[in-house]
C-alpha cells in the first residue's frame, strides 16, 4: 500500500462503506478543525462519536463523548485520529481491539509502523488526509470554494 498517493477509488470505497466514525481528539470548541470535520460528516449522514478524555461537556453535536474507544458500546467502522503522530500507535491498537475496519489519520498525522500493524490485522489505512476534505473533493463540493479537486468526469457528480 502506497501511503504517499491514494487513488480516488480507494478513498471513495472507504467513504462509501463506513457508517459510524469515532473521532479521537474531538473538540467541544466550535472553531477547532475536529469540530468542523465532525459537523460536516454528520450532515453527510455518518454517525460520528466523539472520543476525548479531557472534554468538559457530556455531549458534542448531540453525541455522547467517551473517554476512550474501548468505552463506546456500539460497533465502530472507522477511527479518525485527530491527535499527534506520537499518539497514533496506541490509538491504532485500540482501534484494532475495537474491531474497526478503517483507521484514518488526519493531515499531519502519520505512523507507518502503526499503519502496517493495522493492515496486517485486516484494516484499511489512510494517513495525512482529512475525511471532510476528501469527501467534499470526491463529491465536487470542494470545487465550490475554488479548489482544484482533480476530478474530471462527464457524469453528474455523486460520492
Amino acid at each position, binding site marked *: 500500500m502506497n501511503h504517499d498517493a491514494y*487513488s480516488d477509488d480507494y478513498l471513495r470505497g472507504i467513504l462509501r462503506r463506513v457508517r459510524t466514525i469515532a473521532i479521537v481528539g474531538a473538540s467541544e470548541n466550535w472553531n477547532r478543525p475536529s469540530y468542523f470535520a465532525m459537523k460536516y460528516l454528520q450532515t453527510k449522514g455518518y454517525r460520528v462519536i466523539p472520543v476525548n478524555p479531557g472534554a468538559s461537556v457530556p455531549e458534542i453535536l448531540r453525541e455522547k463523548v467517551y473517554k476512550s474507544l474501548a468505552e463506546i458500546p456500539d460497533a465502530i467502522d472507522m477511527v479518525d485520529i485527530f491527535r499527534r503522530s506520537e499518539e497514533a500507535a496506541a490509538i491504532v491498537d485500540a482501534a484494532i481491539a475495537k474491531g474497526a475496519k478503517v483507521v484514518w489519520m488526519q493531515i499531519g498525522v502519520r505512523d507507518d509502523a502503526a499503519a502496517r500493524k493495522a493492515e496486517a490485522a485486516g484494516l484499511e489505512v489512510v494517513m495525512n488526509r482529512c475525511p471532510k476534505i476528501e469527501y*467534499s473533493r470526491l463529491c465536487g463540493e470542494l470545487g*465550490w*470554494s475554488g479548489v482544484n479537486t*482533480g476530478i474530471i468526469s462527464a457524469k453528474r457528480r455523486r460520492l
Partner: protein
Amino acid sequence: MADARKPAAPGFETLAVHAGASPDPATGARSTPIYQTTAYVFDDVDHAASLFNLQTYGYLYSRLTNPTVSVLEERVAALEGGRGAICVASGHAAQVLAFFTFMEPGDHFVAANKLYGGSITQFGRSFKKFGWEATLVDPDEPENFRRAITPRTKAIFVESLANPSGVVVDLERVARIAHDAGLLFIVDNTMASPYLCRPFEWGADLIVHSTTKFLSGHGNAMGGAVIDSGKVDWAKNPKFKSLTEPEPAYHGLRFYETFGDLAFTVHGHAVGLRDLGATMAPVNAFLTITGIETLALRMERHVANALAVARYLERHPAVAWVSHAGLASSPYHGLAKKYLPKGTGPVFTFGLKDGYDAGVKLVEGVNLFSHLANVGDTRSLILHPASTTHRQLTAEQQAAAGAGPEVVRLSIGIESVADLIADLDQALASAGH
C-alpha cells in the same frame, strides 16, 4: 483492496475542456450554466450558521462565491497545476487580492521593472495608500532582486513574459533568491498563459492572471485570477500572520490550521473577496470558461502567426529592431527555450527608425489591426505605448519598461497571417518608407 496507484494525470487540453465542469448537479446541463444570482437560500438556521462559520461548503452570497465563477476557478487552478484559485473582476484586482492576503502597512516587495505599465502605476501609486512599498529592479540581472530585499520585504513579483517588451525572466533563479530569503515568489503569467509557461514548476508560490487576455481570449470579458500552489508552509514563516493567527472576524479561526493547504484559497474568498469586493461577474466567468476550452488551439496559432510577423518585420527597412524572444537575435532566446518551449507569446514590440511620429502614423494607417489598449484577443491588435498605456510614466520609466517613443506593440491574432503581413506592409509604406 482497491488499486492505490494514481491514474495518469489528464493532459492540458483535456483539463482545458473539462476541469471544474462536470455536468450541472442540479439539472444535468452540459455547458456550465450562468448562475445569475446574488444569494442562495439556507436550509435552516443551523445550515446558515455552518456556512457563516466556514464549517461546510456551500454558496451564501455571490460577492464571495458563485457556482459559475467557481467552475472557472477550478479550471484555472487545474491548468496551472495549483491547489486552488480565486477569480476576481480584473487582473488588477487579482494583484490587489494576492498582496492583501499577506501584506501589512509598512511592508515591502521587490518587483521587476519590466511589467505591464498599469502594474507599475498600481504598485507605485495606489499600493502606497495601503502602506505597501515596492522597489522595481531590472530583472535581467536576477541578483538585483536580492540586493533590494529589506527586513520588511515579503515577496518578489515578476511577469514570466513581460508585457510589452517580451522580456523573459529567469524564473528558477529568482525563485531561489525569494526562497533563500523566506519570501513569496509571485508570477504574473498573463502574457504566456499556462499553455506556454508553467511557473509552479519553476518555484512560483502564487500565480496571478489577467484572464481578460489569452484565457478568455476573445476580447469580451474582464477578469483576473490568483492561483495558489498549495506548497507554502505558512506556519514556518512569522511574516505571514494572516493565515496562521486567529482571525477575529471568524471568532478566532486559524485558516492554516483549519484548512491546511487550502488556507490561501479559502481566505481569498472568505476574507479577500468579502472585504475587497472585486467579484467577477458570472457572465464573464462563463465567457472565460468557454474561451479556455480552445486555449491550446488558439495559442498554437497565435505563436505561429507572431513568429512569422516578427520575421517579416526584422527584414523591413523601416524597422530598427524587433524584440521577440522567438527570434535568434533576441537576448532572451535562451531563456525562452527553457521557460517557453512551445513558443513565445504573440505579444511583442518593435522599434521604428523614425521614432514617435512614425509610430503614430503606423497605428493610424493599419486597417486589419485594431488600434486599442488590450492584448490576447483573437483579433490582431496594435498599440503605440508611449502615446497610450505608458504615457503616465516618466521617460526613464518608459525606457526601462521597454516602451520608449519609437516602440510599437503588437498582439498577433489568429487571422490568416498573409493578411496581417499585407496590412502592416501597406501601413509601413505609407508611414514614410
